[in-house]
């Protein structure tokens, strides 16, 4: 029996390959049409990672070094769900980000801003049965980049998620609701719809806030889903 395919990308929801406002896309965007590939076993399978991939402090970016990093400590938590609203359990979530001064712990980031010896900016966790994840980190700073005159990236955290198959893979960036830099950022603006962009903005969440410790931000992530009908029918069989 053929595998149940995943839903195709909803037109008008994802950034185009060529987006000249983001200069680096010009020489790195295929110009020939993509070839539609029906989902075979090779597409509906994918790597599944167990907890042995994780180190003890991977989900707490503020405790990976001798001392606490400088900056506003915060909790970033949310759910990974699919397009049918179902939790994606047991999936690897990875994040990376700049420090509170807007500098990455990276040899190629030579910007004139301090490094923080107590902050590498990398985190990893696996979602629980309800698709939930939770990181403790510090609020990333803004950083300038060379894309255009007076270009600054909004504060953001990079997210990488796998989901249950090869086609559910997602890499996105989490932004902060109300950040004044958002409309000037060509990477944020490459997501075509306002609803889609808004979905990438974490919201301050009083319930996630830990008294005396740090503010909470909620960020939910949506992965590709399968068409609801056959999937639901299958569910009822159990």
């Amino acid at each position: 029996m053929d595998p149940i395919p995943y839903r195709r990308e909803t037109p008008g929801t994802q950034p185009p390959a060529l987006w000249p406002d983001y200069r680096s896309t010009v020489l790195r965007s295929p110009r020939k049409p993509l070839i539609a590939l029906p989902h075979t076993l090779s597409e509906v399978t994918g790597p599944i990672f167990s907890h042995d991939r994780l180190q003890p402090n991977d989900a707490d970016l503020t405790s990976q070094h001798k001392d606490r990093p400088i900056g506003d400590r915060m909790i970033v938590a949310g759910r990974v769900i699919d397009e049918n609203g179902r939790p994606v359990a047991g999936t690897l979530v990875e994040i990376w980000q700049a420090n509170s001064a807007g500098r990455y712990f990276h040899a190629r980031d030579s910007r004139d801003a301090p490094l923080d010896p107590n902050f590498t900016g990398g985190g990893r966790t696996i979602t629980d049965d309800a698709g939930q994840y939770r990181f403790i980190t510090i609020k990333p700073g803004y950083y300038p980049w060379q894309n255009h005159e007076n270009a600054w990236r909004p504060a953001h955290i990079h997210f990488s998620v796998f989901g249950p198959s090869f086609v559910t893979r997602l890499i996105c960036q989490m932004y902060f609701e109300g950040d004044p830099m958002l409309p000037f950022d060509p990477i944020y603006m490459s997501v075509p719809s306002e609803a889609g962009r808004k979905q990438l903005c974490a919201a301050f969440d009083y319930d996630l806030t830990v008294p005396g410790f740090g503010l909470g931000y909620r960020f939910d992530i949506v992965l590709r889903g399968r068409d609801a009908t056959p999937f639901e029918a299958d569910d009822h069989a159990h």
Partner: protein
Amino acid sequence: MPIESGWATVGPFFHAVLPWKDGGVMAGPETKGEPITILGRVLDAEENPINDALIELWQANAGGKYNHPEDTQSGEIDPSFQGFGRVAADAEGSFTVKTIKPGPVRGLGNSWQAPHIQISVFARGVLKRLVTRLYFEGGPGNEHDPVLALIEDEERRETLMAKPDPKESGRWHFTLRLGGPRETVFFDV
């Protein structure tokens, strides 16, 4: 209904997290199958090396079985082989992967897919990952592979073919071109 979150580039600074140690070593000495080394390169539309690319690979084991619950084909999972690799390109846009040659995998209907490796390309300037496949030049089953057959321009099928090293067997060369006249075939999955 929610829709898939909007993609973004990995940017140039993913190295602290994504390419984990030995990510290009997918198989060990105990892994069943024919060991191979893939010597890859990633180039932009002007054939400049892309020194900040990340490549992910996903493949079946030597018996053509994926290490995943939805693979209900007969055959056994090789405990020494997950089938996933992740490797960053170096300053020359080059990457090295040590794995085993995958077996053929069922396609749709009664078809069979020739041995292939699923490839994802991420980089600064790539807003959404690019998906392609690696096949083995001269490999058994290529001429009947249903996915290669989707590519009407036969010359473009060549862009998916890893080429055997003329001097050393088991070494395969594979170049990804993100644009330009010899642009690699990328798939919409």
